[in-house]
Every structure is written in C-alpha cells, then in structure tokens.
C-alpha cells in the first residue's frame, strides 16, 4: 500500500473543479460511444481487429523489416531506436545537424512516453505542441490527463489564463473567442517552424506508409508545412496491409469520440514531388525520418502474459468507462499512460513499483474489457501483474494470513465464529458495524458492515443433503462466503425458492471459499487449492446444475477454475464438466422458464443494479429484469445501472476514499429513481450498497433477487 498514491487519490477527489470536469467528460463520452456503436456489429469488428493485431504482433520482426524496406524505397529514412534515450538522441542530433530552431509537434503518446519534448527543449530548441489539448497541458507544465483528451480537466478560465500569460494580452474566457485566439496563435507557430514531429496511429508494412489521425487538422499542417518531418512510431503500430489499417479506422473514432471516422486520416508514404517540373521535392517535407521505437515493447511481446497489451490502439475508451478514472482523471496515475491499460504499460515503459501500486486501484469491474475495440482482457492483464509481483516478492503478511485461513473452511469458520462473538460492542440497533479499529476502519469509514451471523449457513442447511434419486433437476447450491457468514437467511431463501420452482436443491457441505480474493490478488497457489476442493465438493453429488447467488463466485467456478487447472489433466476435465453446470440463480430460473414462486399482490416499484460479474462476467442482464417484472414488480431503471458499486475487497482497504466516491455515484443514481427498494443479484453488491445506504441513514432497502423472488418484501 502506498501512502503517496493514496494522498494523490485524496487530492484528486477533493478537487471540486476536477470532479465537475470529470462528470461532464464521463457523460459526454458515454453519449459519444452510444452514437459510435449505432449501426455496426461491434463484436464482429473487434474480433476482426483482435485477430489482425494478434497476427501482426506474432510476425512483428518480419513486418519491421518489410516496413523499413518499403518506407526507405519511398524516400523515408528509418531509424530503429531500442529505447527512449536512443530515440531522443537521434532526433536531437538530426535537429542539430539541420540547424533547427523551432519545432511543431502533433499529439503523440509515444513522444510523451520517451520525454522527447523536454529532451529537445533542453537543447535550446523551441517546441510547440499543436493539438489544442496538448498545447494546454504543455503551457500548464502538466502531463496529459487522458490519452485522447489531454486537457479534459481544465476549465475555460484556466485555459484563458495560460494563453494570457503566453501571449501577453488579455484572452477571453468565453469558449468561442478563446478558441479563435488559440487557433491564431498556433497558425503563427506552423508558419515559423522548420521541423514537424508527429506520432503515427498505424504503420502499414506492405507500402511503408504511416497513418496519422487528427480531428483538429493540426496533423495535416505538422506533417506538411515544414521541410523536415520526423514521425515517432511504436513498433507495435506496424500492421501488414491496408485492410488492417481499415480494421483500426472502423473502431478507433467510434469507440472514443463516437464519430464514424476521425476528420483527417492522413496516409503518408515517403517524400513527395512536384509534378511536371524538374524540382527536387514537393510542397511537403523534403525529408521524412521515421523513428521506430521499441522501449520495452519487445520485452512485452516476448511475455505470453502481457503480449496482448500491444494490441492497444490508444483510443482511450477504456478510460471513458473506468469508474476509477472517472474519480481521479489521468494525472493521478503519475506517468504517461492512464487507467487499467496504463497500469500495464507503466510496468514496461516506466516504473514497475508504481504499476504495482496502481494495480491495487482496479476493482475488476470489467467495463474496460467490455468496450475495448481490440478485445484486450485488461482486468486479466492487471491480475497477471499482481501475480507476477506475488511470484517475485511474495504476499504481504496480512494477505498471507488471510488466505491461509480461507483455504481451510474449518479455520475460516472458527475465525468467523470468534469474530461473531467479539463483534457485540460494535453492532448498532440494525446489527450493522459502523466503526472498526485500525486498519479495518478504512472500510467502515466508507460503508457499514453487516454483523457476522453466528448461526452459519452450513449448519442451517444440514438437512439439504444430496438426493440419491430425483425426478426434478438436482441443483447444488454454492453459497459463497458473504451468504454463508453474513446473510445466511438468504441461503435459506434460495433453497425455498428452488423448491418452489420445482427443483431438487441440496447443499454440498464440503464447499469452501471460491478463492476469488486470492486469485485476483495473484496468489494462484491458494486459489488452486480452493478450486480443487470446490471442484471435488461440487462434482461429488453429480448435480444437474450448480447455482450461485454471487456472480463473483460464479465467474470463478465457471471460468477461472478452467485457467487455474490448465495443465492438470484430470482436475481440468472435472473443471470443464463443472463449468458447464454452473448457473447464476436468475439465469437458471429464466433458462428453465419456471413460473414465479411468489407474485406480489400490489404493484410495487423497484430499481435494479447490474452486478459487474453478472452483466460483464456472465453476460446476464435481461433475465433478472424479466424475473422481477414477472413477479409483479414494476421496474424503474436507474442511470448507469451497470456501473460498478465500488465494492472491491483489497481496493477498499488500500483506497477507501476511491471506493467511496464510486459508491456515491451509484447511490445518487439509485436515489434519483425515487423508489425505496433496489434489487440486485450479487451478495457483494448487497453488502456494499446496504453498507453505503446505512452509512448515509438512507431508508432505501437493498434486496437480493433471491429474496425478492422467494417472498414478498
């Protein structure tokens, strides 16, 4: 846990101007993406892009050679830079040899990554950024807040004061005249400069072409007006053919901004020529230098765990949907790349330790994964980062102890019983815990916790043994820790509901924690031990279905056990069979088409919160809504029903304020519906939402869908 990062997080959360800018930004980009996704088959297009990127990265060494040959044949000079220093030195040396005084630059995250502008400025050359957002952060001496929108955190007043200082004249704080001033001041830069530096969004090997995208038009001017153009290109941008570039173009702007295409897409191949006259060049640059930068990319390519990160097309949509980013903005991340993908890139390009700290902020909500146009499993990359750290440095003492307890159900139960006996003084009239001693106070500062129930679920369900024979489908109930220890009544509701639905439920007594806390912390050995135990416990009665009320557990059982057991032949086969039987409760009821067990006599309004692991982990969002309405309730949709509630075991300990800010947005959306009951399908979400509402003395009730369907609330 890092005190410095936590302090930076607190600062960002306390900055009201920033928070207001972020909520505007989140709203705008959400609308943009909806627009961008209209009329296309996103899944098919992203599958296509994913495959093309995978192929390109697989063949990268050959593609680099092909690109170099074709670019050189067209008149470009290609330089391969192994690291930041070599790229910077090459470009600075070139500028010195050509006697360059003034450079104009279009936006390029890679040049930020290698610190090119500062390097050139140190040699005494004037460098002006020309993307308006990048220009603003240059003048503010800050780092970009967002891959695509570097200055999303700035107000017009702040921007006007930066240009007032630059130009030495009072600049209007009204948007339109401010923009006019900025444009005019940039125009003067273009006409004066003698060198242009750009990045490239794509490089095409078959023709030696670089592709540069801008909406403002600055990319056209930077790459044409000066006699010398240097394009700084990450090697991972190289793709084999034109049609590969199209795969990027089809999704890049749609994902981030919501338009079908970026306004200017510029394909540049070598240097040009005046037609029809014997002049030695054209009106564009006389020289084009393409600096291909590695700087850790080959290392990433060589690692099976992280290779996928190279598929990133830097569209920024993962930031637009990230609840952590929405609370902090990009500058809190500390280096150049932000959000989940930035956490991974930071490890390879900048600072492993910072990356580890950043990885603690990820709640695993999978929003990024669900929108990534290159189909990158960003939460999976983050988990692998954590696992890599655990392999190298081991677990911190607290976690080591905690996982050694959860690994052994008997130990866990005695620990829970001991806590349940000791918790008395902490309980309030609602049996909630509002304050715990250090270090757990960081949790109770954000949410109230439910008291532990000394009468554990396992002992309540001893009668539910596995039926030897049954005409109705046999359903094994996997309860998960939250139900077992905090909400045992919910477990009893589930059994009743399953019976009323004509099924034959039973409770496998040998089940244990699903291992999610250990797995997502990167402790694969504890997770594997638990997977093994659960696979045996849940397979033994040969159930037709295994049903859960915590989608976090369901994702472990259904998906992650498969990856944990890879290579363990017999166990893996069992895990595969188990996986096929696992259902979320609402999924099973919808699939079997059971009649509602209970129907309310009087229509009552409720709202529904989509748990991250149910909607994005298992792809289930329509089923619970149908069941709620079939039971006679009227559903009032909240805004952003599928936004994360901010629950995250480790994150809650490391960054309680962050989780609190994500929770506050969720609670505000719930309150805005005006209904007094929120239904959800995940016990962890129930815990988080109830805890937050209780902390706020709100009368709004949180009901698990199993409870709702089992009996009137």
């Amino acid at each position, binding site marked *: 846990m890092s005190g410095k990062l936590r302090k930076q997080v607190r600062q960002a959360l306390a900055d009201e101007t920033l928070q207001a800018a972020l909520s505007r930004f989140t709203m705008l980009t959400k609308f943009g993406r909806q627009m961008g996704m209209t009329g296309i088959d996103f899944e098919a297009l992203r599958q296509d892009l994913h495959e093309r990127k995978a192929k390109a990265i697989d063949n990268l060494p050959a593609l680099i050679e092909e690109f170099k040959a074709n670019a050189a044949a067209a008149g470009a000079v290609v330089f391969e830079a192994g690291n930041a220093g070599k790229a910077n030195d090459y470009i600075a040396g070139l500028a010195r040899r050509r006697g360059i005084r003034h450079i104009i630059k279009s936006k390029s995250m890679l040049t930020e990554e290698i610190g090119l502008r500062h390097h050139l400025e140190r040699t005494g050359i004037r460098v002006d950024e020309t993307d308006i957002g990048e220009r603003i952060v240059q003048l503010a001496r800050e780092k970009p807040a967002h891959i695509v929108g570097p200055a999303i955190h700035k107000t017009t007043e702040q921007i006007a004061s930066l240009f007032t200082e630059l130009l030495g004249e009072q600049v209007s704080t009204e948007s339109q005249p401010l923009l006019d001033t900025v444009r005019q001041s940039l125009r003067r830069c273009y006409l004066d400069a003698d060198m242009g530096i750009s990045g490239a969004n794509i490089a095409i090997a078959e023709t030696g*072409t670089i592709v540069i995208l801008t909406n403002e038009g600055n990319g056209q001017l930077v790459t044409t007006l000066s006699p010398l153009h240097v394009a700084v290109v990450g090697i991972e941008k190289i793709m084999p053919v034109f049609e590969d570039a199209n795969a990027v173009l089809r999704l890049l702007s749609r994902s981030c901004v919501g338009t079908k*295409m970026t*306004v*200017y*897409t510029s*394909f540049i191949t070598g240097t*040009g020529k005046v*037609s029809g006259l014997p002049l030695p060049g*054209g009106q*564009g640059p006389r020289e084009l230098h393409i600096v291909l930068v590695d700087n850790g990319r080959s290392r990433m390519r060589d690692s099976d765990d992280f290779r996928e990160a190279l598929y990133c097309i830097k569209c920024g949509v993962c930031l637009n949907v990230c609840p952590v980013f929405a609370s902090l903005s990009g500058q809190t991340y500390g280096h150049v790349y932000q959000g989940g993908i930035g956490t991974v890139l930071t490890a390879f390009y900048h600072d492993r330790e910072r990356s580890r700290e950043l990885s603690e902020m990820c709640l695993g909500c999978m929003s990024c994964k669900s929108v990534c146009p290159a189909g990158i499993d960003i939460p999976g990359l983050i988990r692998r980062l954590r696992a890599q750290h655990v392999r190298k440095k081991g677990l911190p003492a607290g976690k080591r102890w905690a996982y050694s307890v959860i690994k052994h159900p008997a130990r866990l139960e005695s620990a829970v019983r001991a806590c349940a006996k000791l918790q008395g003084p902490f309980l309030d009239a609602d049996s909630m815990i509002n304050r715990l001693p250090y270090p757990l106070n960081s949790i109770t500062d954000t949410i109230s916790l439910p008291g532990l129930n000394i009468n554990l679920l396992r002992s309540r369900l001893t009668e539910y043994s596995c039926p030897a024979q049954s005409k109705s489908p046999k359903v094994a109930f996997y309860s998960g820790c939250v139900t077992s220890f905090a909400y045992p009544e919910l477990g009893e509701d589930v059994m009743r509901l399953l019976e009323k639905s004509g099924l034959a439920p039973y409770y496998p007594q040998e089940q244990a924690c699903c291992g999610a806390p250990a797995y997502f912390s990167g402790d694969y050995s504890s997770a594997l031990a638990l997977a093994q135990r659960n696979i045996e416990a849940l397979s033994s009665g040969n159930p037709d279905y295994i049903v859960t009320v915590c989608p976090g557990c369901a994702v472990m059982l259904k998906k992650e056990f498969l990856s944990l057991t890879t290579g363990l032949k017999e166990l893996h086969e069992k895990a595969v069979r188990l996986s096929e039987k696992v259902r979320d409760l609402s999924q099973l009821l919808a699939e079997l088409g059971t009649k509602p067990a209970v129907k309310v006599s009087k229509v009552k309004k409720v709202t529904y919160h989509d748990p991250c692991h149910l909607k994005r982990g298992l792809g289930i969002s329509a089923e619970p809504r149908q069941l709620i309405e079939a039971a006679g309730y009227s559903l009032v949709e909240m805004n952003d029903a599928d936004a994360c509630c901010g629950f995250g075991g480790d994150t809650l300990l490391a960054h309680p304020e962050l989780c609190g800010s994500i929770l506050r947005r969720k609670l505000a959306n719930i309150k805005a519906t005006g209904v007094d009951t929120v239904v959800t399908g995940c016990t962890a979400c129930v815990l988080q939402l109830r805890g937050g509402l209780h902390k706020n003395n709100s009368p709004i009730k949180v009901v698990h869908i199993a409870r709702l369907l089992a009996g009137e609330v």
Partner: protein
Amino acid sequence: MPKDNELLERFKTEAALTGAQIKVASSAEEAVEYVLGLAKEKGITTVVKSTSSIADRLDLAARLSKAGIKVMETSIAQWAAQLARGQEVPIDKLAELVSAATGEKVPAEPEAILRVARRMLKDAYTGAGLGITEADFGIAETGTLVTLENEGNARLAAALPKLHLTLLDGARIAGSLADAADLIKDSPGGIPGHKVPTFITYLTGRNTTADIPGAIFARAQGPAEEHILILIA
C-alpha cells in the same frame, strides 16, 4: 435503382451527417453558378485551387476570374503554366516567374526555386478565402472524401484557407473503406519506389475540437466550413 446511384445517395447522407454542406449539380453550368454563388455569398476575393479535371471541364478558374475573384493555382507546374499562358516553362523561365511573383531575386537553381515557391504558396494558402480541391473519390460508408497526391498542395489548399470546397465526380464513389483501399492500391504512386501516392487524405466532415470546454467546436484549426460539390453531368 442503379448501383452508382445507391452509392451516391449513401455518400450524400453520410457526408451530410458529418457536417459538410453538399450540392449536387447535374450540369456544368449549374455547377459553375453554384461556385460563383458560394463565393459571392461568403464574400470571397481570393481562391487557391489544386489540380482538378472537373474544374478544367467547368472552366472554373476563368469563370471565377471573370467574376473578379483572384484564382491561384497551387500545383507549381500549373501555377507557372497559368502565368506563362500555356508556354513551355524551363527552369530559368520558372525562376523569373517566381522572382516576379515574390519580388525576390531567385537564381535559376531548382533548390532555390522550390524554397521560394513554397514560401510564396504558404502565404497564398493562409491568405485565401476559399480552397478548391478535387477528391479522387468518395466513400459511401463514411461520407469520406479521398484525395491522392504527391506534391502536398492539395492537403494545404484543403486545410489552410478560411473555407474549403471539394469537387467530386458523382460516378466516383467507393462503397466501403475496403473498396477504397483497393482503389488506392490500384492507383500508381507516380514516383519510383512508391507503391502508393505520397499523401492520401481521408477527409470526413468538419474539423473539430473537444479540448475547449463547453461543446465540441467546429473550426478547430482547419477551414470554418466544408462544402462538397458533386457533379453528376
């Protein structure tokens, strides 16, 4: 409906959605009248234009000049030809023309001529009220205009003047990005070693910025308006 017509309709719909203003002309005269009308309405006094067979067919430069509007060719060869009234322009003659136009004594050396001509043209682009360029084809799927060139003047004439007008042959519409890539790869680079032309620009709508808070603003750093004239004659 014939396929070309479908593509054109789709192109028009998509281009209009991007914020471009579109005019379809079914005769040369209608096209010329439209350009003259646009220039008049916007108070245009100077036009920079790049090589365009459509403009040649319409005799557009002459018609604009006749209406009192100064028209400057931006391809250096065409610029020189315009001044030399169609006569051959060897290097020493070109040096004279550039010297006369800039008031700067330029030696008859290709390097020097190109340097001074570039500077002269930069001023022309920025000072012009309207840039007229011709797109090689449009893309129906996205409402995009595609321009291929080696010289670099078309992209400057499209980006620097206050307004931009693209001329487009209504029969030249590709269906999709994939079709566009095929067309490009089939067009010769024109320079040895080039498999495709030096500069290929896909222009889709009006330039914008979201970096100034308040809205997404048009006219970020390029022209204030994008006009498209589609000729179907």
